[in-house]
């Protein structure tokens, strides 16, 4: 899972021109990672046992997010340490595949992408490197008798997929809303194991040259009130926007 800034923030670009200015931003577990953590907890609760382990790659500040996952109910955490998260999803997937290659699990869940990089590479690439079956962007997931079933939204339709374990599933919205940690959970998380070790990143071949804010839309315009404004709207759609 990844630690990302609050998506409702107004972003500014840092003086370097290659990153956002993090001053004053709130960071938390990424939205999709939150869905994945919740899905993992629910699967283990339903199965009645089994360990849930959370991995994050990043600088030390990710400890806070790993503790949050443990306060939700995750049993232990592993921090794969890098100074800076690269923009190269395959380099990250190699670090995870190196960590997970010895197996010992039934399912590896990822968010379908993270808010900041919005690339959706790491989960599916990790599956490929591990030679495991993979469902990309599942909107429903269940496991019964050692078999997984997932639903995946296509444009305008959906597919229902069946797969054997172990497998990798990347999680779309709609699966489960992450629970709020209880006070007991928060206290308990402080005592749960958090292991930190260097990440075995692959070569980084994708780098950020520039970050910039997109052009602003022209300021909005209210053309009128109620039904009376419709003739004007139709005229604008015909003559100015040319869509009617």
């Amino acid at each position, binding site marked *: 899972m990844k630690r990302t800034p609050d998506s409702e923030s107004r972003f500014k670009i840092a003086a370097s021109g290659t990153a956002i200015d993090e001053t004053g931003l709130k960071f938390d577990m990424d939205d999709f990672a939150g869905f994945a953590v919740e899905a993992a907890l629910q699967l283990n609760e339903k199965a009645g046992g089994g360990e849930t382990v959370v991995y994050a790659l990043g600088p030390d500040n990710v400890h806070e997010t790993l503790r949050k996952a443990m306060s939700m109910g995750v049993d232990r955490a592993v921090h794969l340490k890098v100074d800076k998260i690269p923009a190269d999803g395959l380099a990250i997937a190699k670090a995870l595949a190196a960590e997970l290659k010895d197996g010992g699990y039934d399912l590896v869940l990822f968010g379908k992408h993270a808010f900041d990089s919005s690339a959706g590479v790491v989960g599916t690439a990790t599956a490929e490197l591990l030679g495991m079956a993979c469902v990309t962007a599942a909107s429903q997931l269940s496991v019964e008798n050692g078999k997984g079933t997932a639903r995946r939204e296509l444009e305008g339709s959906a597919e229902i997929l069946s797969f054997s374990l172990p497998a990798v599933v990347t999680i779309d919205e709609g699966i489960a809303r992450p629970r709020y940690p209880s006070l007991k959970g928060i206290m308990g998380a402080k005592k749960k194991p958090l292991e930190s070790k260097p990440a075995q990143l692959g070569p980084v071949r994708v*780098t950020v040259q520039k970050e910039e804010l997109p052009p602003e839309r022209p300021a909005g315009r209210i053309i009128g009130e109620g039904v009376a404004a419709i003739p004007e709207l139709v005229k604008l*759609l015909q003559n100015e926007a040319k869509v009617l």
Partner: protein
Amino acid sequence: MTNVLVFAETRGGELRKIAFESVTAARKLADATGGGEVHALIAGAPGIGAKASQLGTYGADVVLVAESADFANFARESIAATIAERAKAGAYRAIVLGFSAQGRDLGPRVAAKLDAPIASDVTEISASGDTLTVKHPGYANKVILTLVIAGSPVVLSIRPSAFTATESAKPARTENITAVPAGGPTVTVVEVKEGAKGRPDLGDAPIIISGGRGLKVAENFKLVEDLADAFGNAAVGATRAVTDEGWRPHSDQIGQTGRQVSPQLYVALGISGAIQHIAGMRTSKTIVAINKDKEAPIFKVADYGIVGDVLEVVPALTAAVREARKGH
């Protein structure tokens, strides 16, 4: 001079719009690097080869046809293996596919198989000497990243509608290639659930009519459908509030955690304009908003706003659009 390999996406035996956009993007890249060839790979059930000439229209020099009964149901592991095998054989500079449901799945697989760097959801591509540079919107479209990608080949998945499919006719040669089987465990498609018929997908539609909580009850979503019908070629979207209420399926949700769309016209009905929703539609060409609260944030991005009750204004607008389109 460098050749570019394209995955030309199909569904239900037909090429999708993103296939033509992918060929267009690849054509531009090949031309910008000295005029190499564009090779478009089409994978489908036996008979899909009949679609090959359509790809020539958009600038493919060669169409590689891989036919297999499994491909009718998107046998992803085998399709990824077929793309990767071809890429290894061909010394390509780049492999281009769409950042669609299929491409999001295939891109990382192909990149991992080839040990090739990948950039996703790309909106611009430029090449200078050995350096490939792309633009990619991150942070839910709030920040534009310029990425430099080292090495060759690279895998690029392009954002739907970011590259306008442009005709550049070539007399494309067709070559049949062998479907490569999956090398490991696979997922099995148990069922494909078809969505509502007769409407374009949110990613393909030139017009999107979208409804929010201002519609008050699920039944009133019919007003959104009616307006979409009046336009004729419109898709129907919704806010997260609406999909959370179960008025519409999650797949219709437009916003930061849902679909991100850029139609020619986006009509927001009873949508206040939460920042997460705006993140999914702010790149639309023209935005219309109808909402009873004149302070609603949606009016900050709407080119044309009407302050009013959607339950009154929308039926009247539907009638006016029908009238304006009479004879179409």
